[in-house]
């Protein structure tokens, strides 16, 4: 596979503020790449640079191996789906989806509402466009909505219209900027799989920006974790979950925030910081770690325990839903599997590899 889009050593400064700092990202043909990071870390900026809506201060942008820094968004033929969908509120769904085609295939004159029909060729062009729009709408289940305006659509429908507008152009690359963040939790999960299947259907490369690690993990082949304008780690979801190269990456990945235990908290790992996920830590009378129970939250299938170590560090563990919670304030023991322990350098935060097993007692 060759890369379709590549940022090479891209830096972007706004005034004196360096927002992207020597970022290099490679997007393979047909892949699903997620840009993951906290708010303000430069995800959108990277995406906008890929799209041609913004320009790097230095570094190269390659589309299909060719430098495209001189081309604007339209010329690159990339499609972009925005966080707020950016549907044109005054146009119907059909017109929204058709707009990129209209701009391409009809002359200025031909676009006029009434006059347009007299321009030679305009009528056929219109018909072709309408066919494409209907095709795209069908593949997204939007046929019924073509005459509605975006204002009267639900979040999920809007989302699909935005996808339709991207789809209809048959672009080289899809760029999606947090397209699901405005939806409620249930709908988000449904749309997730719709986007995945769209990816499979088109076979085009997708670049997907999100700050929700669940989303990134669930959908992507490749996750690029960005922290403070730099690429912290790029790799497959399982890589990131199982072998985070930095404590910040570890803190970012995983449904439940990872616990960091320091020397003296009960796990002996030299002067390294120990990362241990709540789901890897269970109450067990034979466990090696002991801590004080501070609070418990019943979550149905499981129970989240808030604990405090001897040294006073707060951390969390997960018990199964049928666990009988002891009285608050009592000491309990917890067990974990040694291979689930991540070790990080206390100063740099970098992963310490190799030393893992022996360090655990």
């Amino acid at each position, binding site marked *: 596979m060759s890369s379709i889009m590549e940022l090479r050593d891209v830096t972007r400064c706004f005034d004196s503020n360096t927002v992207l700092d020597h970022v290099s990202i490679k997007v393979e043909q047909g892949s699903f790449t997620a840009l993951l990071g906290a708010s303000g870390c430069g995800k959108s900026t990277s995406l906008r640079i890929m799209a041609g809506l913004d320009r790097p201060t230095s570094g190269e942008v390659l589309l299909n191996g060719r430098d495209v820094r001189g081309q604007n968004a*339209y010329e690159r033929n990339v499609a972009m789906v925005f966080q707020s969908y950016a549907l*044109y509120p005054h146009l119907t769904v059909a017109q929204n989806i058709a707009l990129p085609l209209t*701009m391409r295939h009809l002359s200025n004159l031909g676009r006029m509402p009434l006059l347009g029909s007299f321009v030679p060729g305009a009528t056929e062009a219109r018909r072709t466009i309408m066919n494409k729009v209907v095709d795209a709408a069908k593949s997204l289940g939007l046929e019924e909505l073509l005459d509605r305006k975006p204002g009267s659509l639900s979040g999920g429908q809007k989302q699909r219209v935005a996808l339709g507008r991207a789809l209809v152009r048959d672009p080289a690359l899809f760029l999606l900027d947090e397209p699901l963040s405005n939806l409620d939790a249930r709908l988000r999960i449904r749309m997730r799989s719709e986007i995945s299947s769209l990816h499979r259907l088109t076979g085009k490369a997708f670049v997907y920006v999100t700050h929700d690690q669940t989303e990134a993990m669930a959908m992507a082949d490749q996750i690029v974790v960005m922290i403070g304008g730099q690429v912290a780690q790029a790799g497959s979801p399982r890589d990131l979950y199982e072998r985070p190269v930095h404590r910040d990456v570890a803190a970012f990945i995983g449904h439940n925030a990872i616990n960091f235990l320091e020397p003296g908290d009960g796990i002996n790992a030299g002067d390294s910081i120990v990362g241990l996920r709540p789901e890897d830590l269970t109450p067990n009378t034979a466990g090696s770690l002991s801590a004080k129970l501070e609070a418990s939250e019943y979550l149905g299938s499981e129970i989240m325990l808030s604990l405090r170590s001897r040294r006073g560090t707060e951390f969390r563990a997960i018990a199964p839903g049928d666990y009988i919670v002891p009285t608050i304030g009592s000491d309990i023991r917890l067990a974990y599997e040694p291979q689930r322990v991540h070790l990080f350098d206390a100063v740099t935060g970098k992963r310490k590899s190799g030393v893992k097993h022996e360090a655990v007692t």
Partner: protein
Amino acid sequence: MAGAAVILLPFVWMLSLAFKPRDEIFSTSIQLLPSRLEWSNFIFALTETNIPLFLWNGTVVVLGILVFQVMFAVPCAYALTQRRFLARKLIFGLVMIALMVPFHVTAIPIFLGFAQVGILNTYWALILPFIPTAFGIFLFRQFFAQLPSDLFDAARVDGLSETAIVWRIAFPLALPAATAFAIFSVTTHWNDLFWPMIATTDPNLATPPRGILYFRDEESGDNVGPLMAAAFIVTAPLVILFLMAQRKFIQGLASGGIKG
């Protein structure tokens, strides 16, 4: 509410006088209702005087001003919010300063300039000075600033030129603000007396308020029935326009960030 009655008083009186026959207008006793409806006042105002011409002049001037204002203000407001360039701050500063300059301040030099160019006593003299509307730019800017920039990025990705974005995306979206602005602009210039009194001397170019004055003087103040009918005819279009757009106007006021 009593206040409403006070507000209405001159309107009621105007209508009442407009319908009164001449001998009842100057009576020394109070009569609100005319003894018979006298349409002749309206017929007189519409046929014997230049009122229809004044209305036409008013329409031409007001629409001319509005169209040019929008054509100039909307792209500028758009660029000020949705594009980044060096002079942006400077130009916005200019707009803010211009906002503070009432028209009366510029009247003398503009009069002199127009005299030089020789366009006094033309429609252009009544239209041109109002084209730069700092208020309009400001209003539209406030409105555009609330729109997500994603929308415009999307349009760029979709292949719209900046001009196309302005007129096909930004302007249709700004219709509430545009309505509010249009009402402001139209009422202001329809009712303006100051500049028409200065820039035109030809009664054939008189806008409605100027025309009312000509009419009043022509009839020497004692032919009040037709005068009131004329006043009514001149006032009615705006009131009707306003009633139609009232909701949009208030909405636009609220959203356009006019307050504070």
